[in-house]
């Protein structure tokens, strides 16, 4: 019996599943199966299509009635992976996620930008666990498109107010004493779409310009030391990227000497090209635009540089018409990621509510969660590790009684700063700002189990 007919037979075994309605497969899928047979991907797809065509019968886990009194077909039936030989080692030499994880990918927000080479792709926070962002899901933001830069042709130059203006190759950089640290990176515009009102449906689009990785590289202070930086006159540095936009950012020498690093690795592998391969700047606690990708030059100077992204973009318009320049620190913020906007709950009862908290000024001290729109709060469990300028995972128990609920999280950092409401932020900054929105996020759970993005107040 062929694989295909075995599958078809097991799917249509009497008493387990009702007979399929006609046309549950598209013509395209039928043609594919006729031509190539039912491989693992198609077989999984067949089964799912079948279930969908039946209107979703099947048992949905504990506590729910079984369609077949004998038990769950997932247990009673021999599954293909139990009765046949699986794939060889190194079939996928670099490995990819399960085919059942295809929905969790970086996504652009439709209509946000007209050209994808100067755009953003958001991290799917609604599906992530712990605090580390998988490298393939780290958010992307480019100004003039990305390249796979040849590391043998990449150079880092340090010039300006230094004793010796120097050039480093990747060979030089990777021989230097390195450090590895876990830090979050957040775009200054993260949640910026929501300054005026609710604009996007899910946590991927509201908060997904956020990632957290273990970065490995050489402290910038080491490189400045090697070049003999003039720390008396040199009060600022300019970091410049090697891409078409030649992205440039000013930062104070104080910050540059503190915990900034020139990193080549992210979560144990080299940086991905989309995230700055072969080197990028890591500027803990500071908005992502300063983490210059494809870093090619550091200049030491005595004045700030006021380049495009610090004089035209990444400036905050205040109600009095003044623009704030060099706003950089990402203040204490948190968000519930599950459940979150655009998700559907099926039933009442127990849920583990989970989310992320972070602060550009230090460590997370506490996270409180409200299930009544901010009237009453309970303190959540902080999961370890709790690191400075890194994401911190929090969890809290919730037994849903089926009534409408507005859930919020509120983070507090070790400076004592308490995450503000959108109302408090607007009172100072107005509604026409774009950047640095660290307001408390509200998710509404409706009686039908649908979770949506709302703003309270």
């Amino acid at each position, binding site marked *: 019996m062929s694989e295909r007919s075995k599958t078809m037979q097991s799917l249509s075994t009497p008493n387990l599943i009702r007979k399929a309605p006609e046309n549950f497969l598209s013509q395209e899928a039928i043609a594919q199966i006729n031509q190539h047979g039912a491989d693992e991907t198609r077989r999984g797809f067949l089964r799912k299509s079948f279930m969908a065509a039946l209107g*979703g019968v099947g048992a949905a886990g504990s506590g729910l009635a079984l369609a077949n009194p004998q038990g769950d077909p997932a247990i009673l039936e021999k599954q293909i992976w139990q009765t046949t030989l699986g794939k060889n080692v190194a079939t996928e030499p670099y490995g990819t996620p399960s085919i059942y994880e295809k929905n969790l990918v970086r996504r652009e927000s439709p209509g946000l930008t007209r050209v994808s080479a100067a755009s953003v792709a958001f991290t799917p926070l609604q599906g992530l666990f712990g605090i580390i962002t998988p490298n393939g899901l780290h958010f992307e933001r480019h100004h003039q498109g990305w390249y796979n830069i040849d590391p043998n042709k990449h150079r880092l130059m340090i010039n300006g107010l230094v004793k010796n203006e120097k050039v480093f190759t990747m060979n030089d950089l990777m021989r230097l004493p390195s450090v590895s640290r876990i830090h979050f990176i957040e775009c200054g515009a993260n949640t910026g779409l929501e300054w005026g009102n609710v604009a996007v*449906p899910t946590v991927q689009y509201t908060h997904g310009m956020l990632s957290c990785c273990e970065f490995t590289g050489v402290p910038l202070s080491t490189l400045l030391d090697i070049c003999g930086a003039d720390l008396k006159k040199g009060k600022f540095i300019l970091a410049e990227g090697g891409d078409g936009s030649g992205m440039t950012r000013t930062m104070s020498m104080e910050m540059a000497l503190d915990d900034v690093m020139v990193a080549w690795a992210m979560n144990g592998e080299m940086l991905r090209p989309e995230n700055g391969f072969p080197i990028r700047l890591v500027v803990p606690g500071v908005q992502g635009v300063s983490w210059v990708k494809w870093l090619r030059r550091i200049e030491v100077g005595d004045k700030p540089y006021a380049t495009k992204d610090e004089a035209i973009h990444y400036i905050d318009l205040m109600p009095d018409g003044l623009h704030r320049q060099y706003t950089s620190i990402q203040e204490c913020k948190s968000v519930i990621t599950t*459940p979150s906007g655009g998700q559907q709950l099926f039933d009442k009862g127990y849920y583990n509510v989970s989310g992320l908290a972070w602060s550009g000024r230090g460590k997370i001290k506490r996270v409180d969660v409200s299930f009544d729109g901010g009237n009453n709060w309970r303190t959540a469990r902080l999961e370890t590790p709790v690191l400075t300028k890194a994401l911190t995972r929090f969890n809290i128990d919730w037994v849903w009684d089926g009534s409408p609920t507005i859930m919020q999280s509120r983070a507090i950092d070790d400076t004592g700063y308490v995450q503000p409401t959108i109302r408090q932020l607007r009172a100072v900054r107005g509604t026409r700002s774009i950047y640095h929105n660290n307001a408390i996020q509200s998710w509404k759970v409706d009686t039908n189990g649908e979770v949506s993005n709302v703003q309270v107040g």
Partner: protein
Amino acid sequence: MKPILASAVVATTIFLNGTEVNAQTAPAANKSKPYMNMGRNATPAEVAAWDIDVRPDFKGLPAGSGSVAKGQELWEKQCASCHGTFGESNEVFTPIAGGTTKDDIKTGRVASLMSDKQPQRTTIMKVATISTLWDYVHRAMPWNAPRTLTVDETYSLVAFMLNLSEVVPDDFVLSNKNIAQVQGMMPNRNGMTQKHGLWTVKGTPDVKNTACMANCAQHVAIGSVLPDYARNAHNNLAEQNREYGPYRGVDTTKPPVAALPSSGMLMVSTASAPPKAVGPADLFKKENCSACHAPAAKLVGPSIADVANKYKGVANAQAMLEKKVKAGGAGVWGAIPMPAQTQLSDADNKILVQWMLNGGK
């Protein structure tokens, strides 16, 4: 291989001989920092090639000049397709000019930033420093061919942008000699502040919330929700979540479910959608064609619809365009050249051209 092996042996020998050898080879002054001689000195030509930034005090600005008239000519050829003839376009990027007045030039504060009258902030409304314009145009423009403008062309284009904003007259010539005077006329030159708590970790935050735990809000009111018509604006959210586990995506192709599904019902609506085959549209995106060509609107290059219309019924269009895609070129749709797509395989090129000639279908 031989030299590497040889040096490995030497290194081992040094190691076996103990620390004395290392101590002798390391610079005496940097015993604790044995890496201090890493990297090599940059040559003056190398520094000159890369040190292209221009600061607000004009440090780094090369000598040169350019007229408004020359700027207009260049603008129409190189810039207008993205930024509009008058810098007003909002099609590709936010507008360059507009929203400033003669009065703003006097005060150095853009009045429209203090009200909601102006729907969008333009570059000239925001920028306080002329060096910023000069630096960015020179380092990163045109968008699809950065760093191809000469120094004089950059002066011309900056002059033209300021002329569009009525900062300089039609017959103006901007140069390194008069740029400081023009800085004194920038409409928003007094519109920036660095007095805030968000530049350093030690800065003072704007707001001070308290960690109230009980009876904190007398009245909880929802002020803003996503409108119903936007339900599917981010495509089907069911396809953007796991299809297993407690939190599934809402099927936004359908109205909200009437009641809590519960009692064993599984929402597997997305499973019936066949997996998307990789088609020409995906290839178009992957090969970066969509950076310049949109389905119906002109971006940097012509729209797919325009290309399809132009070559409708033209014999040899397929072969001619395949050649053109591979080699690149300019002139048919304006002066901005299409870069040569040498990376494209012949098979993919054929598929893409066929697809474009078919109007992207």
